């Protein structure tokens, strides 16, 4: 799930306002965007790349695609995902928020059957500084991202951006940023991202940016015990009242399940360093000798 400069990227919904804006940004950054998709604009060229009716058409015509990223509204997301999965992409980045949960489950079932990895839904995307980015992160902002050896995994795009900024302020850079998304049912979990960073040669330290709700951080703690690289975690939502959905569909505390205390306890027991503010992330990374 670490995006590379050689990956051939297709943009679904390339002709929309956001699709166009971010495709320009991705191309300028060096992401290898090879095609766009819009069923009504097939045959045209947009942002300098050819537009096809489907990801399958695009893959056939250009000899395969590695990654597809969806700028697609919720009601059309399942069909778009099914198209990308059928086209054989390795990685599908689902930016869309508010996709009906039953459609999300169908997406995950289709992806699992085809061996495709979904990142998201409701992710801000993936950044490999100096190489490529896919999604809606400010990769091009040199105060936020620069090449380095800290791997960052985050549910939130905005908070992930802030943490990356404080790392750069402190003199660090990132090996990669993996936005896993704010939905309750994610294709790529914190555990998956930690495993990828543990295996990645360019990563020497890992930052986990989690939030209240669900049990993903607790599950991640189960594998942190076997991670050799230092892990620093910040969990958002300590001050949030229980029983309320805090913006993200996944961010809700029910009883003790999903609570800040449960997550912090599990992560600390596994040996992660859990900090109180975003700025303390970089200080902890420094203390741990990364």
């Amino acid at each position, binding site marked *: 799930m670490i995006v590379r400069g050689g990956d051939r990227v297709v943009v679904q919904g390339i002709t929309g306002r956001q699709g166009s804006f971010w495709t320009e940004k991705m191309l300028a950054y060096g992401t290898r965007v090879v095609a766009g998709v819009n069923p009504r604009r097939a045959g045209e060229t947009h942002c300098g790349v050819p537009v096809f009716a489907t990801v399958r058409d695009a893959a056939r015509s250009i000899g395969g695609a590695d990654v597809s990223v969806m700028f697609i509204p919720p009601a059309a997301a399942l069909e778009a995902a099914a198209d990308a999965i059928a086209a054989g992409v390795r990685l599908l980045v689902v930016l869309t928020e508010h996709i009906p949960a039953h459609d999300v489950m169908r997406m995950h079932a289709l992806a699992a059957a085809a061996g495709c990895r979904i990142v998201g839904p409701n992710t801000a995307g993936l950044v490999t500084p100096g190489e490529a980015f896919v999604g809606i992160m400010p990769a091009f902002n040199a105060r936020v991202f620069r090449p380095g050896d800290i791997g960052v995994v985050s549910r939130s795009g*905005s908070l992930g951006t802030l943490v990356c900024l404080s790392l750069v302020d402190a003199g660090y850079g990132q090996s990669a940023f993996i936005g896993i998304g704010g939905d309750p049912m994610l294709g790529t979990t914190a555990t998956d991202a930690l495993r990828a960073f543990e295996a990645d040669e360019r990563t020497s330290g890992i930052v986990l940016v989690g939030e209240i709700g669900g049990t993903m951080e607790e599950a991640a703690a189960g594998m942190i015990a076997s991670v050799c690289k230092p892990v620093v975690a910040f969990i958002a939502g300590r001050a949030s009242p229980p029983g309320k959905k805090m913006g993200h569909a996944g961010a809700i505390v029910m009883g003790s399940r999903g609570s800040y205390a449960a997550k912090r306890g599990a992560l600390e027991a596994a040996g992660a360093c859990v900090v109180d503010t975003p700025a303390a992330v970089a200080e902890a990374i420094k203390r741990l000798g990364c």
Partner: protein
Amino acid sequence: MDLEEAEGKRVLAEAGIAVPPGELCADAEAAAAAAERLGPCAIKAQVPAGKRGKAGGVRLVDNVADARAAAEAILGMEIAGHRVSRVLVEKRADIAQELYVAVLNDVESRAPLILFSATGGMDIEDNPEALIRIPVDIMQGVERKQIFSRVQDDDVSDVLARLYDIYARTDAELVEINPLARLRGGGLLALDCKLTIDDAALYRQPGLAGRGAREKLSALEERGRELGLKYIELPGDIGVLANGAGLTMTTMDVIEHYGGAPANFLEIGGEAYTKATAALELVLANPRVKSLIVNFCGAFARTDVMAEGVVRAWETLQPTLPVFFSVHGTGEEEAVRLIRERLELEPFDRMEDAVRAAVAAAR
């Protein structure tokens, strides 16, 4: 969106799951009249909350006078913050055994899950080892014989198959019957129903969209909803305006870390980032707010667009309370320039410093 028991039971009955005869009543006289028709009854508070029995919101009565008294006692009660405005008067059943059945979105397996327990009733969550769990492939659905192979009971398999159909057809997050009564004379009867519909799917559930229980919202939360903004009122005095759920929660966390108390949760990320003007008006409409932190970190949301909205609203409303900005990410240079030129304020370089200043100003 949660449906109240009576609405949920209507959905069950439409799908062929038996429910007791009953009437929905808004006053004690109607409840007494219903009891006269139905005989021995249960009088049940209609609120979208569990543990109604333990809160005193469910009473069993044998005659009309008791029915009237029970309805009088329950109507107007407050249960889990919800005022009871209606009771369900329901004919009592002759129960041999209480079972538990449910179908829900299982977050861990990212798939539907059917649950069954032969010991239903009040304390189902205290007895998790009695649960039979049947995972379902959402692309295939589930057949009755698959269910039967696990529960070994024809009547229960029939109810579970119908319950799965309801779940699939209504975009439910959860549909639960607890208890499902096995009657002395045979057969199963749904004595309660909890049905939660996925808010994100309401656009394709027109038949259900208007049938949800009213959420308990403050006046400001109601206004936020009308504006399409996710606003949650909190007891503190520091107003929060941030983008993205994660950053907004974090802003609240850092406020508490420095000894302050947030007055609200309000995020204008995602598609709402162009609504900064309306959002600021909402935050300032809370009379408890003594200082304001504006914390933007733009990924998808462009900070220049959000800052423009805030600056414009500030110029229009001309509030007198102190405001502290931290602005980073997409569109940062333009956003900082706007704040400097039009508000004559200097955004803080670190979010922590902006929050500390806001906490100090509120004291």
